[in-house]
């Protein structure tokens, strides 16, 4: 067995699990539910084994390091944390409602990682990354990211279920945020289909190909068409978003449950993020770079995310915010997290380095 095969099994497994979870909602049959859980768990175990194999493989290559050090590995690990978080929720609350939403996300993410052509090579570590803090800092950061991701999912579901008036700001928020997510994924899919950018390095992919098929195309009309299409998607989502609510209503999710889950996940993610992401990161930076805080874009964006979640907690405790407002806040929090994780690498380094190349 090698890690790519096991990753493939996990990918397919998550999609199968999604179908069984949907079957469970239709038939409301306990045996189907147990099967869904079993399939999801098996896919998760396969992914866990793949991570371990990759780790072992790196030793075989004489490199020997945890599989957490480049974009490919971190995305895979993010998906793993997401599924772990979901399975914990399922076992703790005896509630399978989320399965149908989380498993396709996991499957799509793994598939997408495959498609984007991010380098899968096991590369040796640059000296700065050779530290025991790597494991603690990166694992905890990603567990926190995954927790914030789950909170985002519960927050968005809450908004979908709690709003339907088109002039309501929360309704506008979720339709726009949701469609922007969809547009970004679709645009990246278009990049892949157009350029088949497989095999290029992360930096090359980002600078050379990202959104080149659409928003950053060399042909003017394509750019205009892309923006017009994106606008059309946003308007359509806004116009017909309530249909999604009708569909989701049948799943019998209670708003109270979603709200409480949203808070609880953040209550786990926030301390882990503070300790693993910020504090461990600072200690490591102190050892490797000689400064515990240097305001580099990654640190700064982590701080911004931290401030958003701190604001969420204070709004909830001090002002007693509940419902839509708090769901919007948790979603904004995750948007800043995505920027911390991907945007800083893609966008800011890009902004600074285009001219130099």
């Amino acid at each position, binding site marked *: 067995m090698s890690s790519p095969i096991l990753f493939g099994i996990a990918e397919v497994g998550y999609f199968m699990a999604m179908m069984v979870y949907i079957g469970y909602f239709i038939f409301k049959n306990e045996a189907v539910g147990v099967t869904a859980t079993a399939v999801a768990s098996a896919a998760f175990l396969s992914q866990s084994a793949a991570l371990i194999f990759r780790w072992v493989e790196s030793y075989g290559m004489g490199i020997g390091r945890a599989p957490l050090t480049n974009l490919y590995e971190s995305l895979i690990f993010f998906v793993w944390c997401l599924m772990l978080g979901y399975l914990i929720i399922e076992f703790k609350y005896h509630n399978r409602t989320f399965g149908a939403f989380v498993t396709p996300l996991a499957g799509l993410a793994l598939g997408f990682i495959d498609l984007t052509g991010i380098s899968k090579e096991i590369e040796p570590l640059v000296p700065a990354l050779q530290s025991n803090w790597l494991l603690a800092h990166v694992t905890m950061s990603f567990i926190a990211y995954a927790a914030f991701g789950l909170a985002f999912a519960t927050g968005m579901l809450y908004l979908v279920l709690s709003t339907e008036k088109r002039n309501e700001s929360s309704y506008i928020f979720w339709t726009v945020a949701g469609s922007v997510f969809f547009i970004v994924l679709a645009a990246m899919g278009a990049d892949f289909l157009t350029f088949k950018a497989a095999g290029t390095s992360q930096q090359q992919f980002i600078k050379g190909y990202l959104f080149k098929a659409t928003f950053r195309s060399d042909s003017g009309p394509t750019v205009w068409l892309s923006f017009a299409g994106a606008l059309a998607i946003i308007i359509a989502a806004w116009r017909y978003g309530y249909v999604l609510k009708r569909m989701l209503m049948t799943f019998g999710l209670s708003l109270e449950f979603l709200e409480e889950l949203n808070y609880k996940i953040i209550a786990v993610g926030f301390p882990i993020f503070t300790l693993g992401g910020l504090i461990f990161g600072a200690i490591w930076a102190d*050892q490797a770079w000689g400064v515990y805080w240097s305001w580099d874009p990654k640190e700064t964006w982590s701080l911004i995310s931290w401030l958003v979640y701190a604001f969420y907690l204070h709004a909830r405790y001090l002002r007693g915010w509940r419902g839509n407002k708090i769901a919007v806040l948790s979603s904004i929090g995750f948007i800043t997290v995505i920027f911390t994780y991907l945007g800083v690498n893609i966008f800011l380094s890009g902004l600074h380095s285009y001219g130099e190349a």
Partner: protein
Amino acid sequence: MADKNIIDKVWKFFTSVKLAVALFAVIALSSIIGTVVEQNSQPEKNIKLFTKMFGAAYAQTAYKTAASLGLTDMYHSWWFTGILICFAANLTICSIDKLPHIRRIVNEPVKPIETKDFDKYGIKKELAIDGNIETAKPAALEALKKPGMHPIEAAAGSPASKDIQLYAHSGRYSRYAVYVIHFSIIIILIGSVIGVTLGFSGYLTLPEGETSAVAYTQEGAEHSLGFSIRCDNFAVSFYGTSDMPKDYSSWLSVIENGKTVLKKTIGVNYPLKYKGYTFYQSGYGVVPKNNSKSLIILNITPKGGKSEQISLAVGETFKIPGANSSGKVIAFSPALAFDKNDRPYSYTENMNNPAIYVEFTAEDKVRHSGWIAKRYPQTWAMPDGSKVELVHNWGYQYTGLQVRKDPGVWVVYAGCIFITIGLYSAFFLSHKKIWVLLQPEKSKVIIKIAAFTNKNKTGYEGVINSVFNRLTHVTAQGQRR
């Protein structure tokens, strides 16, 4: 009394939650600007950025405006520091303002409640168990001790009734956790201020073999260390024969009053610490002009003989012991490679694959000449059976050290430890109160439970359910026997 009014007003201003929200927003938004505009970099980079954003016509004006607002070194600008000071003041005053109120809640003793109030609590439960008050009381006490409560007993209801009320609370000090977090943030900020005002941050580049008693600030000013530091050696190791660096190491010596007091090999992630200063491996490079001290170190093994290490400079000659041939080092290449036509060239200035060109002479005739490269063992074997290995080239490189003295770092770390304790207590501990009323009724005892928690209501409800549901179960079994 106008003075008091102003102090009151200022105090009130800093206790406002609106100010806190505004500061959060301002810090977050200005930080975003700071990540887009490159900090402390050459003006050209940011002018390029502004050209992209506003067009060439406005780039210069935009850059000048940004620079005058301190946006190019934003995190050290007076206004950003000002915002952070306001944030610290807001945090401190908000916390102090709320503290007496919280102290009252923490110190408030838990008291029995009226029988009729049992229905008014967020968490409530009622159950009946078989038995009388004498059997029910110890069972209820036992159940309360399970989640770590220390119950107090009181008579309840009318004096004639035999009702008993048990009540308890736990985790009340967890209410201070939020303040622990807030003050930890203040401690971290104080630590950073200590570091900035009393510390030093600079750099030092040291060629192999050289000694320095000073480091340099970012602006290039000298800073006396109070001791000297010497770079004995520097080396980069690579993964296999690739050019991917595996490790950078500097062999450093600390010299005080002419004596070497400490020797240490440092690497990335493994700095040297001495008298409050920390020396980090941060870079390396090639000494512009090979200084007179540069040496090539060779390991020579004559055919069937013992190996011997020698060092010499380019242009010098060495003898192979036991044989009558000698080698002359003609040329040096920092990174030898061969092109398509097998012509040697240096592919980088860095010492990725150092090599020397040696001419071997025996009986006044050139017998053999060729490149000896550090990375290629096949180049070490000589036609006469001896082996000449290029071990190291010394004096060609310098090590780049980051030098820092930060007496505030331990304050920052202490703050980090406190914040961790605070976070744990704030999120995973809660202040709980519980009241249990036992009312005997014929052969049964009615148990009414009211409880309160400031966090995780469902979790506490679950605990109460599980311990008291077991009670019905246990007594029912006892009855059956």
